[in-house]
């Protein structure tokens, strides 16, 4: 099974669980992408909330 044939939820997990070298390499690549996406979102949203709080305080003070 190649990555282009996997569309349904859980397909990735089943493919990786086959433990073939290709599957494990694909899991590493996918985890790297997920980590990048997650942390960029975390950083941007947290920063936006903090800036909003500071601006709100500036307006209220």
């Amino acid at each position, binding site marked *: 099974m190649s990555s282009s044939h996997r569309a349904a939820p859980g397909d990735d*997990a089943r493919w*990786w*669980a086959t*433990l073939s*070298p290709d599957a*494990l*390499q694909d*899991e*590493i690549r996918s*985890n*790297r992408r*997920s*980590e*990048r996406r*997650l*942390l*960029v*979102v*975390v*950083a941007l*949203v*947290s*920063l936006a*909330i*903090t800036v909003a*709080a*500071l601006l709100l*305080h500036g307006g*209220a*003070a």
Partner: protein
Amino acid sequence: MSEVGRDVLVAILVALVGIGAIPVLAGLYQYLLVPVHAFRNHLRDAAPHLPRVVVIVPAWNEGAVLAASLDRLMGLEYPPDRLKVFVVDDASTDDTPDVVRAKAAQYDDRIVHLRREQGGQGKAHTLNHGIRYALSDDWMQALLIMDADVIYRPDSLRRMARHLADERVGAVTAFIREGSGRPGSVARFIGYEYVTAQAAARRAQNIMGAMACLAGGAQLHSRENLEAVGGQVDTSTLAEDTYTTFLTQLNGRRVVFEPGAVVLAEEPDSVTALWKQRVRWARGNVQITRNFRRVWFRPSRTHHLGNLDFGIIWFAIYLLPVAMGFAAVGLVGLYFVAELTATQVFQGFWWVAVTAYVFITAATLLLDRETARRSWLQGLLFPGIGALVVMSAAWFPNLWEVRLPSLLGLEMSPTGRMVWTLTLYSWSVLAMALAWVVKLLERTRAVRWLATPLLYVVGFGPVLCAITLDAYVKQARGASAVWDKTEKTGRVMG
């Protein structure tokens, strides 16, 4: 007092408040490193790698939780012929031996029962019994140390093992997530705390290249690393996992945190049980700090434990109760010596705290959404309702003294205002004192119901500070260092 003497005193008091701000800034620094992990992490050097793994499960009267843990281990998505489990039974008096023997029969002897006839010496001795057995032949290529009550997600072991493909890595740790089936307030607070202390802090430590601690319930060592650290874990301290983490790095090997490997654990759900567990951990950290005293703030080519940022973070946590005390002494002192300066410093100190609180809370809740769903309230109230009132008082001067009372047609008297101000200034210490009251209330049947509301007022952070302080006092007094087991019920979901 002369003018110069007064100025010197003011400078000293302001400096004390400044010291109190160091842990807040250190926490903020760690969180600012977390996004860097998006682009600089060890997955770049990881590769498909499935070494032959021996899992050591230390067990002392774990009959209630062991069967589920062993079933989950046997269900790991890992080649069955590359996985063996050694349950080291520390002279259990419950049905632990029967449970292990039944599971060994069920899984064709991939589970091995190792019995210590004389137990009670602690987890480190129990682990060493199993490690000696595992090292006695050449089969094992990597060793996983875990706790009897944790549940490994099916993909967790292989996600840890892939980092050992890089020979520079000596050990890998996973993300321990609080996973009680019916968590109460304390367990929910711990769930949130684990995201800050592991999912966030250990990502930052990956970036710094210095890891403070391999989670006791999830540490995968390469055989080479295990042999290099002496083929056993330390038995002289209460923090054998931290000891091994430091030795690994001092030998020039890296320790990696894998956030995608998730392990569920049931944590204490009362302040009393938490206190017992964390006093042991904190006393262990005192021993580590002392044993590795020649490591701190001494940069080295072989490891990063001596780097300035790692040292500041270690001591910011280690000396947190002292820092909080300094901040309170500084502010209260300033109130009597230079009231206007006290107001400005108070607002500045808590302004930093509010900024850190908003950023860290938002980041933590976003970092692990499963925990956020369970523990969002405990995340928001982690510093305590009291600290949130203090923050609001710093951000909106006169809110509590003038504006809110005037809405009710009231006015605060000068004495009331002084008491209120001193309460705000000394809150960091008062909260630690109230944390003791929470523990006392919990032990008193008639007023036990008051313990949880007071916990939310005091906050979980100050409770941890108070526990740390208690640990230092016990350590200084040379109180006996016993290995208390945290009682578990086997209510881990997953």
